[in-house]
C-alpha cells in the first residue's frame, strides 16, 4: 500500500474542480497550505467547502486539477492510502466499538503491535481528557465527549494532515466555545497541519492562522483573520464577516485615505475605499451593526426604528430609511420603536466597495 508521506512542507491544490453532473461544486481551486498551519475553509452552506475537504480526504474524486503533497500527487490515491486524519460532522464513531477500540482503529489498520496501540491510545486519551471513558461505547457518551473521541481517533495515527468537517456544529453554544478552546489547545500541542471547514466566521476567526473564504465553489479571499475581519476584499466576504449594512451611494469626494459617499436624503457616509472605487461612480458602503450608531449630525442617515432589542451591553436595532433600506445599528441607550433617528459611523469602520455586477 502506497501511503502518502508522513511529513510534508506544502499541500497544494492546483486548479481543483469537482462537478456533480452539470453542477460545478468547485471551480478551479488554487490553494497552498504550509506545514503546521491551521487553515479554515469558510463559507455559507452549499459553497463547496465540504466538497473541497472531501476531495483532499479522498472521499470524493476531483474532476479537474490535481492535489500535490510536496512532489507527490495524491488525488489519485484512495482515502486509505492518504493517511490523513478526518473528523466528521456527525463524528462517525463506530457504534459497536468502545472508545479505546475506536481510537485504536487506525493504528490497528496500520498493523501497529498491540502494546504500542495501547500506549498511544492511552496517551491520546489523556490529551483529550477521556481516560476515564475508555471502556464506554459511543452511545453512552455526551456530544462533547463523542467529539473528543472523534478528534482522538483522527490524531492518534499522527497524520500529516488533520481534516475537520464542521466538528462543532452539533454542539450547544456553551460546549462549542469549550471545544473550540480544546481544538486550539490540541493543535498547539501537536502542531499538526489542520484544515477546518466551518460556516461560522467567529469559529474561523478564533481558530485559524489563515482563512479561505469560499463562495459558490470559488475562493473569494485568503488571508489572516485580522486581514479578513478588518479588510474584506469583496462585498460578499464583507457580508460574511459581519458587515451587515449595505448602503448604496455615489462617491462625491476624496480626502486622503477616505472617500465621501452621498447615500441619499442629504446623508453622507465617509469610509475607506477598496480597489476600483472611482470618483463620481456608484459605490456601496458596508458597516457592522456595532459601528453604526445614532448621531446628532445633520449628515446622518435618517431612519425610523422598527425593532430594538436588549443585548446586555447595548441595544441592537433595525431601522428603515425613507428609501426602504433596512439598516442594523447599535445604541448605548434604549430607544423607542418608531423613533426617528440619524445614523452614522466612524470612517475607519466603514468600507466602500465598487458596485459589482451581481
Amino acid at each position: 500500500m502506497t501511503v502518502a508521506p508522513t511529513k510534508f512542507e506544502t499541500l497544494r491544490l492546483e486548479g481543483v474542480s469537482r462537478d456533480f453532473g452539470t453542477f460545478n461544486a468547485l471551480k478551479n481551486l488554487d490553494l497552498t497550505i504550509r506545514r503546521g498551519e491551521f487553515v479554515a475553509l469558510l463559507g455559507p452552506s452549499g459553497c463547496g467547502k465540504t466538497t473541497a475537504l472531501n476531495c483532499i480526504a479522498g472521499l470524493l474524486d476531483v474532476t479537474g486539477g490535481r492535489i500535490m503533497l510536496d512532489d507527490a500527487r495524491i488525488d489519485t490515491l484512495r482515502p486509505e492510502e492518504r493517511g490523513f486524519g478526518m473528523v466528521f460532522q456527525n463524528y462517525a464513531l463506530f457504534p459497536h466499538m468502545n472508545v479505546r477500540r475506536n481510537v485504536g482503529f487506525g493504528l490497528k489498520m496500520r498493523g501497529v503491535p498491540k502494546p504500542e496501540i495501547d500506549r498511544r491510545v492511552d496517551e491520546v486519551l489523556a490529551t483529550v481528557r477521556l481516560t476515564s471513558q475508555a471502556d464506554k461505547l459511543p452511545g453512552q457518551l455526551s456530544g462533547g465527549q463523542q467529539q473528543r473521541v472523534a478528534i482522538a481517533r483522527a490524531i492518534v495515527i499522527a497524520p500529516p494532515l488533520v481534516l475537520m468537517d464542521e466538528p462543532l456544529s452539533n454542539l450547544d453554544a456553551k460546549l462549542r466555545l469549550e471545544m473550540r478552546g480544546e481544538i486550539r489547545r490540541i493543535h498547539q500541542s501537536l502542531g499538526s497541519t489542520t484544515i477546518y471547514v466551518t460556516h461560522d466566521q467567529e469559529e474561523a476567526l478564533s481558530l485559524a492562522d489563515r482563512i479561505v473564504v469560499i463562495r459558490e465553489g470559488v475562493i473569494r479571499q485568503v488571508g489572516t483573520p485580522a486581514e479578513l475581519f478588518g479588510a474584506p476584499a469583496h462585498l460578499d466576504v464583507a457580508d460574511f464577516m459581519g458587515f451587515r449594512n449595505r448602503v448604496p451611494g455615489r462617491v462625491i469626494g476624496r480626502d486622503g485615505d477616505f472617500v465621501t459617499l452621498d447615500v441619499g436624503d442629504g446623508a453622507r457616509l465617509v469610509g475607506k475605499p477598496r480597489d476600483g472605487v472611482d470618483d463620481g461612480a456608484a459605490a456601496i458602503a458596508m458597516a457592522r451593526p456595532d459601528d453604526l450608531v445614532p448621531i446628532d449630525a445633520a449628515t446622518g442617515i435618517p431612519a425610523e426604528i422598527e425593532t430594538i432589542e436588549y443585548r446586555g451591553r447595548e441595544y441592537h436595532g433595525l431601522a428603515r430609511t425613507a428609501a426602504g433600506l433596512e439598516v442594523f445599528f447599535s445604541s448605548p441607550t434604549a430607544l423607542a420603536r418608531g423613533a426617528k433617528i440619524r445614523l452614522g459611523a466612524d470612517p475607519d469602520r466603514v468600507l466602500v466597495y465598487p458596485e459589482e455586477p451581481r
Partner: protein
Amino acid sequence: MSAAPSARRTEGPTLTQKLRARGLDGVTLLVLPCVVVAVALFVYPFLYGLWLSFHPKAGGDALTNYERFFSDPFLSKTIWTTLRLALPVTLLNLLIAVPIAFRVRLMKHQRLLTTILVLPITLGTVLIAEGMLFYFGPQGWFTRSLMWLGVLSHPLHIVHGYWGVFLSLVIAIFPFTFLLTLSYVTGIDPSLEQAAATLGASPAARFREVYLPLLLPGLAITFCLSFVQAFSVLPSAVLVGDPANTTRVISIAAYQAAFEEYDYSLASAIAMIMGAVQLVVVVVILGGRTLLYRGPVAAAKG
C-alpha cells in the same frame, strides 16, 4: 366545578392517569382485535393440534405417534431432507443478498432494480415451479441451449430432484431475504465506512470491521425468517422435486398422513415436530445473536 381542582389535588392522579403512565390508554384497546384473530387462527389450532397429537388414531399410549415418527426412517429422515434443503437455500440467499444490497444501496435507479428483484414474490411458488419445468426441463431452453453450445451431451436432470426444489426455493425466497437485508444495509450510516477508509482500512477490512458487526444481528433475523419459509416448503417439493425420495420433505409427510392415511393425529404430531425443529434452529441463531452488538447503527446521537 370550582371545588373540583383542589379536591383532585389532594387525591393525587386519577385512575386514568395512572393507567396511562403504565402505557394503558384507549389506543391499547386496538390490540384486542389482533388478540382475537391470533387466538382463533393460531393459538387455538396449535393447542388443538398439540392435544390431537397425543391421542393416536388407533388408540394407545399418548406418545405413540412420536415413537412411530422417530422409529420409522421413512418418516424421521424427512427432518434431515428438509434441513438439507432449507439451510443451504437460506444461507445462499443471504450470501447473494448482501453484496447485491451493498450495490443497490449506491444506485440511482434503486427502485427499478428493487422492483425487478422483488417480482418473484408476486408469482408464488406454483408459477415459479411451472416456469422452471418449462425452462429447466429435459426439453427446456436451458438444457437445449447448453446442448447446442456443446457443453452438455445429454439432457440435464435439474427438475424433479433436489436441485429443482433448491433453485425454486432460492428464487421464491430471495426477494424476501433481499428486501430485509437491503433495509439493514441502508440503515448503516455511510460516514462510518468513510471514517474507516480515512483511518487506513482497506475495503475488505471496512466490511469485516465495520459493516459486518453492525449487520450480523439483522442478518440473524433475516436468516430466521427466511429459514422458516424454506423449511415449510410444500408445493415446489412436489412440483419440481422428487417427492417420493430426495425431496420428501417433512410437510409432505404431514400432508400424506392427513390426507392419504386420514390420520390427523399423526399429521398433528408431525406438524409439532416440524415446529420444534424450526424452533431449535431459530433459538440457536437468536441465541448467538445475543452475543453480538445490538445497539444503534447510526454514527452518533448528535
